[in-house]
């Protein structure tokens, strides 16, 4: 065989491309699978996803019994830095280099970009931490499953409960990108449908904003009863803390934190967070099965209890492995769409979310829980932060499918 200059250049280019993937291992032949956790490891959502998501996916591999079943499963991780271009190019590299499924992906803008790439490459995308309903709506595809929650669930559970308890007039502080706007619009619709009014809204630049005082003072001077926070992660934490500094809650305005996670409450502290109303679809101290799961995964993530997003990574990864096992590895390797079809066919069952199912449009169906944050004196265990107020059953938890929105839904 003769080597042309072009062959050598091609090999060099390929080597350069793979060199940018330091975490991709040399693979053993045989029954090998690679699970890629694409997440935020340093930015505003890293406490709610990031390394604890990786720990949860590793837990899924263990609980599946991969080694005993003869699988060689590798879990790799990558930081998308909350930038859609970085996220989609990393996803493309992963798909081209043998990653079978991409898991987690916080940030709706990044998630929508990744969903497109994964569909094009016919791999599998299990999104746990992004919120946008568009993943199972107009941007749905046969390779994507949206696991843990979405903006419909948050707006209806937290928003609906707040209006029902008398919070009729709202002022919104909104993260100015796909997720914040969608969450605000859907919550506005819920508020108005229930007879409430919206007196104001500010859209702040994301992710550069750390001081929310100007917006909070505007909210305060609006005279609204409820401050709706259409943001998440560190931004929501900062808003809640600063609202406390400006005496907003003390002056009788209540805060509807539309998306805060257990990890955020931990960062805020119960002193300030007490009384907040929020919604999650998983809480570690919910029942015996959730506690058992948490005890198993905690040694891998000792300083950070899993929130619903991280538990969703566990649940999604476990179901993926079960589906691949059921259909056989050769069939699974041939098509991501086929794996997703198999996942939709099988009911789900795991310690974190109990029994569930996946709908035609890729929506994982699970109940959600409305919680109130405990007072400091009521918390008896580490990370014991929530009282359960209300459960929304799976069937009511997500937007009904309307034909014509998602192309996978047949009339």
């Amino acid at each position: 065989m003769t080597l042309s200059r072009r062959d050598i250049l091609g090999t060099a280019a390929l080597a350069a491309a793979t060199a940018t993937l330091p975490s991709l291992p040399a693979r053993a032949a045989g029954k090998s699978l690679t699970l890629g956790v694409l997440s935020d490891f340093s930015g505003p959502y890293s406490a709610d996803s990031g390394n604890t998501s990786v720990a949860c996916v590793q837990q899924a591999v263990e609980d599946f019994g991969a080694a005993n079943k003869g699988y060689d499963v590798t879990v790799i991780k990558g930081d998308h830095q909350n930038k859609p271009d970085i996220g989609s190019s990393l996803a493309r590299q992963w798909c081209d280099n043998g990653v079978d499924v991409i898991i987690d992906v916080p940030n709706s803008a990044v998630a929508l970009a990744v969903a497109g790439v994964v569909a094009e490459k016919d791999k599998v995308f299990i999104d746990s931490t992004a919120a946008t309903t568009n993943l199972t709506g107009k941007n749905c595809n046969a390779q994507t499953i949206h696991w843990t929650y979405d903006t419909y669930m948050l707006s209806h559970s937290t928003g609906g409960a707040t209006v029902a308890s008398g919070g009729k007039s709202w002022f919104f502080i909104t993260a100015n990108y796909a997720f914040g706007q969608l969450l605000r619009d859907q919550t506005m619709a819920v508020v108005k449908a229930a007879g409430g009014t919206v007196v104001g809204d500010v859209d702040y630049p994301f992710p550069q904003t750390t001081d929310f005082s100007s917006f909070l003072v505007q909210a305060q001077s609006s005279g609204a009863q409820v401050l709706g926070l259409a943001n998440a992660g560190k931004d929501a934490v900062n808003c809640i803390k600063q609202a406390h500094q400006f005496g907003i809650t003390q002056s009788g305005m209540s805060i509807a934190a539309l998306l805060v996670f257990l990890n955020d409450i931990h960062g805020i502290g119960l002193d300030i967070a007490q009384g907040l109303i929020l919604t999650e679809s998983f809480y570690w101290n919910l029942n015996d099965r959730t506690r058992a799961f948490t005890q198993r995964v905690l040694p891998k993530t000792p300083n950070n209890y899993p929130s619903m997003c991280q538990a969703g990574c566990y649940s999604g990864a476990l179901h993926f492995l079960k589906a691949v096992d059921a259909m056989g590895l050769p069939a699974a390797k041939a098509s991501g769409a086929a794996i997703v079809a198999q996942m939709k066919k099988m009911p789900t069952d795991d310690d974190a979310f109990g029994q569930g199912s996946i709908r035609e449009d890729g929506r994982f169906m699970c109940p959600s829980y409305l919680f109130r944050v405990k007072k400091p004196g009521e918390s008896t265990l580490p990370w014991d932060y929530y009282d359960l107020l209300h459960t929304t059953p799976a069937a009511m938890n997500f937007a009904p499918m309307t034909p014509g929105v998602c192309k996978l839904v047949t009339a």
Partner: protein
Amino acid sequence: MVMILGKPAPLLFGQLLLGIINGSFYAMLSMGLAIIFGLLRIINFAHGAMFMLGAFVTWGLLNYLGLGFWWALPLAPLIVGTLGWALERTAIRRIYKLDMLYGLLLTFGIAEVLQGGFTQYFGSSGVNYDPPDLLSGVLNLGFMYLPVYRGFVLGAAILICGTTWLLIEKTRLGALLRAATENPALVQSFGVNVPRLISLTFAAGVALAALAGVLAAPLYSVNPDMGSELINTVFAVVVIGGMGSIGGAILTGFGLGIIEGFTDVFYPPGSAVVVFVVMALVLLARPSGLFGKAA
């Protein structure tokens, strides 16, 4: 209610005050940068990291040694300033003779290492630090509720900026500093130890950043990115004010805080870019900055 440009007047007064308070951080940070640039010709990209260190040292003093906010006010700048001094002696000193870009790269690298290390250890959401009891609570100013602590920050910032300005513009030490900036060889020939003067100036600039960090700790969450989030704006402030001009840095810092505050009311999505729009306009009209001497 009195309305100005379609917004209630009390709301605008409130924004003015908040803008000045946020501006006081820009002023304190850009002043340190201006001092360091003036004497060392180093564009100190690690300044934000020093601000962050100041906040973390404040937190550490309380959580490891039980020393509260009032102890942290002198101790944290002293500790971080000593670190800055060591940094100057061991690393930054070696690149004075090289192109300015090397200083930028070195300090940028130092900032990345510090930030990465803290993120690894503390996580990106950071830690919580409460204002001292004496300063918690809210003042009713009539047009707005002002947290007592923010009022304190404003007073402290004005005091710090004023003292530093007086020290540099009106004292013998300041005169020496300014002379060493103009002509180090000449000042050395009068028997002044210029290398030591330079080390101490760097340490003092860094200590100022740390002091701002102490003041910021109870205000924002103490997290590894808190410095990098501010530093871009602060550099814009220094450029607008005129590189190396201390008075310019102070006035521009407060001024831009106010402009940002009003942008928050009239067009919130623009509040992150307004500073850079101002910077572009100023550079077009006066390339050496508002208060800078023409090169």
